[in-house]
C-alpha cells in the first residue's frame, strides 16, 4: 500500500462524517405514507375539478361549432346557387365584349355590325361614303384601318 492509497484508506477509516437531524429516520415511514396519501387524493379531486371547469367551456364550444356549421352550410348553399347565375352573366358579358372588340377597322365594323343590322348593301355604303365624306377623311380612315 503506497502513501497515496493511505490517504484514501485513512479517509474511509475516519468513519461517517455526515449527520442527520435528530430523529430523522424515526418518522420516515409515517411521513412517506402521508405524502403518498396526499399525492393520491388531489389527483382524484383534481380530475373532478378539471372536468367541472371544462364542462361549460366545452358545451359553449360545441354550441359555437354547431352554429358555425349550420351558418357555413347555409352560406355555402346560397353561394353555390348565386355563383351559377353570375357565371352565366360573365359568359354573356365576355361574349358581348368580344363582339365589340372584334371589328378591327371601319370597313369591318360596317360589314359585321352596321351592315348586318341595317341590311345595307355594299353599293349603298360606297355611295354614302363618297357623298358624305371628303377625300381626306376617307384617306385617313383607310390609313387607320391598315
Amino acid at each position: 500500500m503506497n502513501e497515496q492509497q493511505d490517504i484514501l484508506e485513512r479517509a474511509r477509516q475516519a468513519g461517517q462524517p455526515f449527520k442527520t437531524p435528530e430523529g430523522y429516520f424515526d418518522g420516515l415511514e409515517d411521513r412517506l405514507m402521508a405524502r403518498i396519501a396526499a399525492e393520491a387524493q388531489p389527483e382524484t379531486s383534481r380530475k373532478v375539478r378539471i372536468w367541472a371547469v371544462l364542462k361549460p367551456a366545452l358545451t359553449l364550444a360545441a354550441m359555437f361549432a354547431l352554429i358555425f356549421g349550420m351558418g357555413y352550410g347555409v352560406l355555402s348553399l346560397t353561394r353555390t346557387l348565386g355563383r351559377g347565375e353570375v357565371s352565366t352573366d360573365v359568359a354573356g358579358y365576355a361574349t358581348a365584349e368580344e363582339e365589340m372588340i372584334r371589328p378591327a377597322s371601319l370597313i369591318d365594323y360596317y360589314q359585321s355590325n352596321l351592315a348586318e343590322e341595317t341590311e345595307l348593301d355594299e353599293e349603298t355604303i360606297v355611295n354614302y361614303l363618297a357623298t358624305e365624306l371628303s377625300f381626306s377623311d376617307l384617306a385617313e380612315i383607310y390609313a387607320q384601318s391598315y
Partner: protein
Amino acid sequence: MTDQEILQLYRSGEREKAFRGLVSSYKERLYWHIRRMVLDHDDTDDCLQNTFVKVWQSLDRFRGDAQLYTWLYRIATNESLTFLSRQQTRGGSLTLEAADRLSTDTWFDGDQLQRSLYKAIAKLPPKQKAVFNLRYFEEMPYEKIAQVLETSEGALKASYHHAYEKVKSWMKEEIDARY
C-alpha cells in the same frame, strides 16, 4: 424483515405493511448512498422520499428476477443522478459548491482529510461518482454494481480504477497545496 418476507406480505395484499417494512429495512442504507452523491441533507431527503414514492408506485411491477436490494439501489441511484443532472443543466455543479461548503455544514463533522475526499469525489462525472461510491464506501461487489447501473462488469472495473486514481491525485494536490 427480509426481502422475501416483504414481497410475500405485499403479494398477500398487505401493501402498506409490506411497504413500511421495506422502508424500515432500507431507509438508512439508501439515505447514506444518496447523501454521498448529493451531499446536502435536504436534497438527500427529497431524493430519498422520491425514491420510496417511486417504489410504492411500481412495487406491483417488480418481477423478482432481480434482487429487491439491487432494484432499490437502482431507483435511488437514478434519482440521485437525475438530481445531479438537473443541477448541471441549471448551470454549474452545485455538488462542487456543496463540497466547498462542507466545513460550515451543520450536518458534517468530518476532518480535513474527509473534506478533501468529498471535494475530490464531487469533481467526478455523476455516473462515475456512483460507481466509486458503491464500490469504495459500500464495498458492493462489481456483479451487484453492474445490476444497479445496468453496465458490464468490465466497464465498471475500468471506471472505478480511473475514478480511484483521479480522487487520489486530487486529494494529494489539495493536501500539498494546503501544507
